[in-house]
Structures are given as structure tokens and as C-alpha cells.
């Protein structure tokens, strides 16, 4: 079955810089795909290319088995001919129109009859829980309400694809969380295919069926929120999604009885070295690797545990109470590590502690 949205070999240049460099992905019908990455990674430009607001230098875009962009064949469909909806970062509510007129605009452009426009506008306003605000002036609304008007406008004409360009970044933190759930509910309710751009990883993980992490114009990794967090395939993804300690080492043996586990030596051979038994993603004996250790995959002990592997010792550099947990910065022989302990725990600065690493979670990636 052909995918509903397909982007192939997309490249876009600003001046001399390729801001989108050979990006390909597909979105299934009714799925919400999140493009996630730091600012300037090309995610917004990719979205704008899908919407027809930018002309790519190379590549093709197919929506609902219709080609909308094919640079090789010189095909470029104007944005108004692509049948999309969009929610922009600044909401982009037209201040010279009422709420009703804003939402009715896409239908007017499709020359629908007045009675069907009225029905569908009210239906869309109900969907975004703004039923009674139709005749209000758009600019009298609060930020969260304007955002919902923008959403109603984007869905009212039943677009093939809904584009979200960092729609929540102008809202304050509390409202942002509420809107996140509302957005997800509505997208499920109307079963629309959506592409969602954000730099906020919590937002991305909460919303996306699938996430696509981008960096420097290229795709780093695609997967579910869980797989990106637990099985990052690149250093960038490991560092960008959640926090991670990156520990350099070398694979000294493969432990076949434990599935794909490997034994990694950290530090110079000798007394100061320690060994970590962790999961491996395509590494073999003798490879330089980086071990990804999430702060919560560590257990802090006062006494050195009786284990051959997976213990790193160090001294407490700083200890920070964060309510639900205590964050401890630990100086070790190899690197400074950030680990999380129970909220009730406290450690004196300078005290020696022993960290037990959960080898069934940590991953060894080829060193960059």
C-alpha cells in the first residue's frame, strides 16, 4: 500500500548552505509524525516544502498518491492547490476578521454554500471546545483561544494533511501541556494525517505516533518515543532526547550467551580501568565505542558492591535536590557523570560513592 505522504530526496538551499539535505520519509494515513530537532536543523523548512511555501532544489513530494512536487519533472503545485491545513507558530489569526470569518475562510475559498459553511464552522469550533466564541473579534481572545481558532481553521475544510509549525511554543508551560493532550485527542478524533514540527522533546514524545529526529539538515533517526529513548542509534539522538552520560571505551569481548551483550573496557588497561557489560548495536571486539548511560539507569551505593562488572566509583561533586529526585554530579576517573537518586537521598560533597550501572539498558554505540 502506498504511503499517504511520501517525501523523497528533499534538498533545499539558503544561499550556500543546504538547510535540508536529502531528507526522505513517509507518513501513514491518520498517523501523526513529529519532526524533532534543534533550531536550524531544517525541520521547519521541510514542513514548508510539504506545504508548498518553499520550493525545494531537489526531491519529490507525494500526497494521497498525487505528486505535488517533483523537481526533476519541474512540477510544483501551489500551496492553495494541495488541500492542506496549517497551524503556524504565531497562530496567524487574521485580526481584521471575526473568529467565525477566520474559521470560514478555507471553506469560502472552496466556494461552499453559506449554510454548509455555517454548519461546518460551528462543528469545527465545537471540536476545539470554542463553541460560543464565533462572533467575537479574533484579537480579543487569549493566546490559548487563538491557538484553538487556528486549529479550527486548519481542520474545518477536512484537509488531507495537517501541518503544525511549533504551534505550542508561544504558550506558557501549563497551557502548553493542556493543549498537547487536546491536540492529540482532536487528531485522533478526526483521524487526520499530520506532520508536526517542534524542538521540544517532551511535546514530541507526548504527541507523536512516530518521531523523526533531524540535525543539520539530515535525518538522524526515526522511531517511536520509546525506541528513540532506549535505543538511540546516534550520539546526537542520545544527547538530544533526554539526558545521557556518554562514556568512551573499547569492546574487549562479546558475550554470546547474553544475546547481543558486549563487555566494554573503560579507561586505560590497568588498575584504573573498569568494565561494563552492556547491549551492543553492531559493534565487535576491538571497536572504540561510546556507552550511553541514562541518569536513572544507575543505582548509587555507599559500599562497593560485590560485582565484577558495571561498577563505576567516584566522588560527589555536587548534589541538587529537585523534588521528585536528587541529581548528583559525580567526578570519576573517566568523565563527570550525572545520575539521579531518590528524592530523599542526600550526599556530602567529596564523599566516595559506587555507581551500579544497569547493563540490560545501557547501549554501546560505535564511537564517532
Amino acid at each position, binding site marked *: 500500500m502506498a504511503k499517504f505522504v511520501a517525501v523523497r530526496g528533499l534538498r533545499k538551499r539558503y544561499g550556500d548552505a543546504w538547510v535540508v539535505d536529502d531528507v526522505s520519509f513517509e507518513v501513514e494515513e491518520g498517523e501523526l509524525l513529529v519532526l524533532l530537532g534543534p533550531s536550524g536543523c531544517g525541520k521547519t523548512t521541510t514542513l514548508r516544502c510539504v*506545504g*508548498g*511555501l518553499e*520550493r525545494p532544489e531537489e526531491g519529490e513530494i507525494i500526497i494521497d498518491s498525487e505528486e505535488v512536487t517533483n523537481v526533476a519533472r519541474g512540477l510544483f503545485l*501551489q*500551496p*492553495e492547490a*494541495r*488541500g*492542506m*491545513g*496549517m497551524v*503556524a*507558530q*504565531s497562530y*496567524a489569526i*487574521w*485580526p*481584521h476578521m471575526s473568529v467565525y470569518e477566520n474559521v470560514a*475562510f*478555507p471553506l469560502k*475559498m*472552496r466556494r461552499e454554500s453559506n449554510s454548509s459553511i455555517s454548519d461546518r464552522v460551528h462543528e469545527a469550533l465545537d471540536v476545539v471546545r470554542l463553541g460560543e466564541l464565533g462572533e467575537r473579534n479574533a*484579537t480579543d481572545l487569549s493566546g490559548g483561544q487563538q491557538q484553538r481558532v*487556528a486549529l479550527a*481553521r*486548519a481542520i474545518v*475544510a477536512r484537509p488531507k494533511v495537517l*501541518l503544525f*509549525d511549533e504551534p505550542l511554543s508561544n504558550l506558557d508551560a501549563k497551557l502548553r501541556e493542556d493543549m498537547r493532550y487536546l491536540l492529540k485527542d482532536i487528531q485522533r478524533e478526526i483521524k487526520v494525517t499530520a506532520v508536526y514540527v517542534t524542538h521540544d522533546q517532551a511535546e514530541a514524545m507526548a504527541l507523536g505516533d512516530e518521531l523523526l529526529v533531524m540535525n543539520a539538515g539530515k535525518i538522524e533517526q526515526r522511531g517511536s518515543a520509546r525506541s528513540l529513548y532506549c535505543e538511540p542509534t546516534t550520539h546526537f539522538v542520545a544527547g538530544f532526547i533526554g539526558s545521557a552520560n556518554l562514556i568512551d571505551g573499547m569492546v574487549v569481548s562479546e558475550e554470546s550467551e547474553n544475546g547481543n551483550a558486549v563487555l566494554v573496557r573503560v579507561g586505560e588497561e590497568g588498575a584504573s580501568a573498569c568494565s561494563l557489560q552492556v547491549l551492543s548495536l553492531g559493534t565487535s571486539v576491538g571497536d572504540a565505542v561510546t556507552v550511553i548511560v541514562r541518569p536513572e539507569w544507575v543505582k548509587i551505593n555507599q559500599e562497593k558492591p560485590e560485582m565484577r562488572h558495571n561498577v563505576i566509583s567516584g566522588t560527589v561533586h555536587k548534589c541538587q535536590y529537585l523534588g521528585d529526585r536528587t541529581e548528583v554530579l559525580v567526578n570519576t576517573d573517566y568523565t563527570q557523570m550525572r545520575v539521579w537518586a531518590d528524592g530523599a537521598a542526600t550526599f556530602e560533597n567529596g564523599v566516595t560513592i559506587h555507581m551500579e550501572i544497569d547493563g540490560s539498558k545501557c547501549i554501546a554505540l560505535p564511537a564517532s
Partner: protein
Amino acid sequence: MLALGQRLRTNVRTERLVFWTAAALLSFAILYPASMSVYAAFTDKGAFSLGGFERVLRHPSVGKEIVTTLLFAAGATLGATFIGVPLAWINSRTDVPGRQLLEILCVIPLFISAFVGAMAWRLLLVPRAGMLTKVLTDWGWPPELLPDVYSITSMIVIQSIFYSPFMYLYTVASLRQMDPSLEEVARIHGAGQWQTLWRITLSLNGPALLSGMVLVFVFTVGTLEIPMALGVAGGNYVLATRIWTLMSNYPQDLTMAASLGILAILIAGTGLWIQRRILGDRKFTTVSGKGYRARRINLGRWRWVAFGTVLSYVIIAVIAPLLVLVLVGLQKYWAGAFKLDLFTLDNFRSVMFEYDVTRRAILNSLIGCSAAATIAVFMSVILSQTASRRGESLMGLLVLLPIAIPGAVFGMMVLFAFVRTPIYNTLYIIIFAYVIGYFYLAYRTIHSVRLSIHDELEQSARIHGATWWKSTQKILLPLLKPGIFSAWLMTFVVLVREFSSVMFLYRNGTEVMSVVFFLLMERHSARLAAFMVIQTAILLLVMVIFQRISYRNSETIAV
């Protein structure tokens, strides 16, 4: 603690004192001339009389002149809009080739006096002897199909051309402040390029465009430039020219002139009233604080059409007029075409160094306009500093009041106010009119810069022990400096151009450059052309300085 509290109270007192003194002076300077001319309209030789209005009603041609005024002002407003708005859109929103140069060229007409433009087009199109007329008739163009340069249509067209930069600047500023995603979202939701332009871009910027239109309308009601340069010769009198004739021809009829002045203010006020009616209290806040780098519209083949449109405007408004003036200025006398054996530099030499009136006028203009610009800027700084919290609306109203008064009427008012005082017949009365008439220009620029400077900067100076005066001096003035420069230059340029009000105020010895245009108008076209070239050169020089400074400012602000 006590000492600090006391000091802050004293500070507040100085601040209030300075503000109210300045505000009182300004209100007096505006309200006194206004009330004197109302008084003049309702009295005859010191006694209450409605004779002035009666003579207006009985006058054989004033009725027709009112119609002409309305036609002229409404026509020029529409014309300036149809020229200025498309130019602004092309230059700021499309990928027209060479737009950086075009952007500069489109603003140049602002620095050319409309009187100069009108005289240049007169030289080009005058029946039989006009430069363009000759060329066209030589090519077999039938003379009866040539535009009549003295007609009301020509007046409207030329007024439109030289006032379109106002519409241009208003539109460009408004477009720059607009969030481009407002347009993009419309495209995504099914509106084509032209539908988006009409339903979103133009509708959204409507209020800004309307303010620009009202400004052009009021200017046109009160202008003497085109009506003097083209209207009088063609027999097309407007209210401004009628008022001027009543004031300067013997026997004077001051009462009737003052009554007509009130009529002109009513017409101008109608424009402002219509604006209020349409807008109500609607203000489309499309600004979110940041400057937008709007994506330009890809015009495809139409780029060259757009380029040609802008270029033909530049040719009509800048290149052709300046070229013909230079050519005419370089001739011993003007014979309708440039002849090499009549080439001479004498005109330029004589208007600069020999001919008394022109030499004096250059000096008077430079001195008078510099002095007035300095005073206007100085007062603007004081008022914007003190008015930033208090009396904002009062000041806003007072400062804007002169905009609603047509230029020629304003000149007449100042004359009424000072006719029996020692400053009558001196350069001071002209400086006074300059300052009050154009104070708002300096005030607006400086006030907007002032608003962009956070109060906290000043408050922290105060917390750290600076008095109000000290913090103004050490914190505010340095930050305002770029604003002060551009306000000064802008005011200076407009004052050098100013024609309509000084026509009532000059006397033998206090002529400024624009007045001399009028004095030389029917006498020596070659010398007049040379003199106009000199004035335009001065203004363009100031423009270059202005652009350099505002360019540098935009850099410092970005940092």
C-alpha cells in the same frame, strides 16, 4: 531611605515643571494663531460681523473653487494611493530585479519639492514650446491629443506623483510589520496569490493605508505648490490660491480670507472624520515586536513588468524633471530645446553668488530651517521624555493638531497672530511657522525611539542615585542620539521644501528658496531652473546623509 524618598519627590517636581512649561508654551503657540484667525473671520474693523461669510456666499467663483478643491484633493489622494501602494508592494514583497536601487529611487520624490516637479513638467509639456511637446509633434503626434499641463487633470496627476512617496512609505512600513505567516496560512487554506493579496495583505493594512490617504488629502487641500505652478495659469483656482489672492492682492479682504480658511479646515476635517468613521476604534495589531523577513513573491515573467512599472515611475517623478531642469539651467535662455551654442554656466553662478534675492534666499533657508529643526527636535526630546507616562494623550492631540490645518491656512493664521508684533516681517515669524507646523514630524520620530528605550534603563539609573536631569543626560540622550539625528534631517528637508505657509509670511529680505521659485516663475526660466537644481541638490545631499545614518542606526539597534 528618607533622603532617597525626598530626592525622588524633588525629581518628580522638576519633571512635572519641565513638562507643563513645555506643554503650555506649545499649546499657546498652536491655539493662539488658531483663535486669532477665528476672531478675524468673525470681525470687521474690530466689531462682530458675518460679512466675511456673506462675501464668500456672494462671490462669483468661490463655489466652483470649492468643487475644484475637493476634486483636486480627492483625485490626488486616490492617485497617490494607486501609485504608492503598488510600488511599495512591488519593492518590498516581490522579487523585482534591482530592488535595492529601486527602493532608494522611489523615495527620492519626497526630497523634491512638488513645485519643482510641476515647473519641470511645465517645461516639458507647455503647448508648442515644451521639450516633450516638440519631440512628440515632430513625430507626428496630433497636438490636440497632448495632455494640457494646465488642466485640473494634470494638476491631480502631478500632485499624485509627488505625494505618492507618503503612501509608499506608509505602506512599506506597514507591510514590514506584518507577520508573513498571516499570508502563508491563507495560501495553505486555499487562497491564491491574488486573493491573498486582496483579502489578507491589503485588507489588513487598510488602516495604515487610510491614515496615509488622509494625510495626503489634508496636505492637498492646503497646498499652494501645484495650484500656483499650474492652476493659476490654467484658471483653476482652489481655496488655497483664493485665500492667498485675498491676502496679497490689493484691496486685501482679511475677513473673507479667514472665513475661507475655516471652510478649508472643515474640508480637511471631513477627511479625518471619514477616517474615524471607517476605522472606529479598530486597530489591527499585526505586530509582534520583531521585524519580519518576509519571503518575497516569485513573479516569474511578471518581474520585468513590475520592474518596468517602478522604473517608469522613477523616470516620470525623478529623472525627467531633474534632467530637464539641468538642461534648461545650462542655457542662456530657454528656446524650447537644448542648444549647444546657448550653453552657459552663468545661471548657476548668478543665482549662487550674484543675484541678490537668490543668494539671500539660500542663506535664509539654511539658517531658518536649521534653527527651526533644532528647536523642534529640542522640544520633542523634552516632551517625549516627560510625556512618556503623563499627559500622553494631551500631547499627542496638541502635536497632531497642525496636521489637520491645511498649510496655506496655517500660514494665514500665523500672519494674523503676529501681524502687530515685532517679529512680523522677520525671519523669526517664518521659523515660528516652521516649528509649529512641522513639530509633529520631529516629535513622532523621537517619541517612537523613546518608546523603544525601556523605562528600566532610566529607572535603574535613578535607583543608583542619579537625578532626573542626570539620568536624562547620561542615559537617555546618548540612546536617543540616532533618533535625534534622523529627526533633525527629516524635519530640515521638509522645511526647505515648505512652500504653502511661507508664501504668507515672507517679505522683501526674508525670502526663502521655495518663495523665490514663485518670484522667478514667470520671469527667467533658465535662472529658475538653475536655482531649482541647487535646492534639489541640497535636499538630495541631506537625503544621502540621512540614509547613511539610518543605515548605521539599524545596525546598532540590531546589536
